[in-house]
């Protein structure tokens, strides 16, 4: 069993318009010191997954089923108070927008100190020293002075560093970063990604990085999980996903991206249509209304949900198309087009 094991996780929200199947049967594992990248478009259920692991949907309207094993402890069935004790300590989270994610009325130092003292019975002075250390570690200049600043007095990059310091305050073994750099400029994004990579090595924590930017996961992740419509459609090592993807949606993502590392093409290869609403996920394969190969699956695409099945190379793909056909398609039609880019 891995350090983190998620099995058939489902998080559904009953709403007036119907049942929102935000996460619908997700299974993955992660070891200490490894990084999992979760990619997918807006509304595919990435954030709901991460909040679900932290137990933040407990006590709300959400209907949660499945299992989440963290270091041998099951969290879905655990009492809320037990999960709260793990939050911030054993598992921590970094959010997308560092300005709105920090309380505007408290100093940065106060917020880090608070996070530390929830789980450590120490005096304010000791916690304050710890906060200054952490701010220094994440690269904030003059941490002893900046510890008393308010979030709005920091620049975007510094705020995200402070968020990271807060998340790291109790040496978490699992760190979840939900779009940690989406709100930042590229040069600052590069700094933050470097910082996260270094810190992960130092702490040997398990890291989940959630993003819609394939470039970001390519830089950091060991494994990648591609989500579409609340489900995992492809899951495997980073090299597998980038160099021999087998799901049409992953192909579409790769074709949509203009890339700096290749000669520019005449045209991008977008996916037609737009992502589904999770209230009305298309029946069968959720991707079928947008899939160029939907007609190759003998009408099953719109009636039968494909299984997440292993390929001959061992990574998992959710598609009705026969394996060999997918491989030939990738090798002969998709890859050549993408490579000329």
């Amino acid at each position: 069993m891995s350090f983190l094991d998620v099995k058939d996780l489902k998080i559904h929200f009953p709403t007036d318009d119907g049942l929102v199947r935000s996460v619908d049967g997700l299974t993955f594992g992660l070891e200490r010191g490894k990084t999992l990248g979760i990619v997918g478009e807006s509304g595919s259920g990435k954030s709901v997954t991460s909040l679900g692991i932290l137990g933040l949907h407990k006590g709300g309207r959400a209907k949660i089923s499945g299992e989440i094993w963290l270091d041998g402890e099951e969290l879905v069935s655990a009492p809320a108070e037990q999960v709260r004790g793990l939050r911030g300590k054993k598992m921590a989270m970094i959010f997308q927008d560092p300005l709105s994610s920090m309380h505007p009325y408290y100093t940065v130092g106060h917020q880090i100190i608070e996070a530390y003292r929830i789980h450590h019975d120490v005096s304010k002075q000791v916690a304050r020293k710890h906060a200054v250390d952490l701010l220094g570690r994440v690269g904030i200049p003059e941490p002893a002075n900046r510890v008393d600043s308010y979030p709005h007095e920091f620049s975007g990059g510094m705020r995200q560093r402070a968020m990271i310091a807060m998340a790291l305050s109790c040496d978490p073994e699992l760190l979840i970063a939900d779009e940690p750099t989406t709100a930042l400029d590229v040069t600052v994004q590069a700094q933050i990604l470097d910082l996260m990579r270094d810190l992960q090595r130092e702490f040997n924590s398990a890291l989940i990085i959630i993003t819609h930017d394939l470039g970001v996961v390519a830089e950091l992740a060991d494994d990648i999980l591609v989500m579409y419509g609340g489900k995992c459609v492809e899951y495997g090592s980073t090299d597998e996903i980038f160099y021999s993807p087998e799901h049409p949606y992953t192909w579409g993502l790769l074709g949509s991206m203009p890339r700096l590392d290749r000669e520019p093409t005449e045209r991008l290869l977008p996916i037609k249509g737009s992502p589904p609403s999770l209230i009305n996920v298309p029946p069968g394969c959720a991707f079928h209304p947008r899939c160029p190969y939907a007609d190759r699956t003998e009408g099953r695409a719109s009636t039968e949900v494909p299984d997440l099945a292993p390929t001959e190379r061992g990574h998992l793909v959710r598609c009705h198309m026969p394996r060999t056909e997918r491989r030939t398609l990738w090798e002969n039609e998709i890859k050549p087009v993408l490579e000329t880019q």
Partner: protein
Amino acid sequence: MLTYIIRRFIGAIAMLIVISMVTFGIFFVVPQWAGSTPEAMASRYVGRAATPETVHLVAQKLGFYDPVIVQYGRFAKGIVAGAEYDYGAGVEQCPAPCFGYSFISGQPVWPDLLDRMPVTFSLAIGAALLWVLGGVSVGVLSALRRGTFFDRLSMGTALAGVSLPIFFTGMLSLVVFSYGLGWTPPGGSWTDFTENPAQWAYNLLLPWITLAFLFAATYARLTRAGMLETMGEDYVRTARAKGLTERDVVVKHGLRAALTPILTLFGIDFGLLIGGAVLTETTYTLPGLGQFAILAIRNQDLPQVMGVVLFAACFVVVASLIVDLLYAWVDPRVRLS
């Protein structure tokens, strides 16, 4: 921050000057537009029996023939530095906040106002404590239990609280609790705090609750709305992700932010209330400023009316100044910008 404070102070002073001008205008200039002559105005000061000559003389001495600006200057000086009145029968000193003399009793207005203040303050402070504590906690609970029976019940009650006039709830409570059940003293009971604190509180209990009910309703609704908003904020999610207990999440993160608009409202409400909880004081026949104002108006006692109006206005301005400063203290973004 310093410039902010100074700017707010200057603003408040300007506001007070404007208020004094408006008050002056209402009481001295508008009557003239409406056809009142200086003599008619002066006759109020000397009684009905006076001869036209005396009236003319008094009008002259009181400066009713002077240009408006000069009259206003004298009026303002009276408030700030005191004034001397000369009715023809010797000069009388009217010390610093001088609002003139009552037509009825002939006494200076200010000491009378001072006399009434403890009642109004007692009423306002006690009720404010009750309504803030009650309103805010009901609001918070309602927000946290949105859609439950408790939420609907308290919001329904709050709606009733906002829409029922105080003389209705006041009378009803008197009839039921004082005259019917005999749990509380009848209307008109007042004991000074310094005399007997327990009796003071006992006497004020019913007015406090009635007044607080009216305001608590608004505060509960406002708190509920504010909490629903802040509890959905990203920073509340962060607080939960840190592993804070739900109580700390609600109180230290959610409520802290939701309280700021309530603070503003409180300043205004409290200021207005000090100016006279007119209906409450009338209903319970408490000898406070509100009752004073009603009597003054009924008696057409111009200096008294003017005094109470100015005093009330000043208090609203001062209260909102204090709120602004508190606001800056609470929200660092205001303080530092």
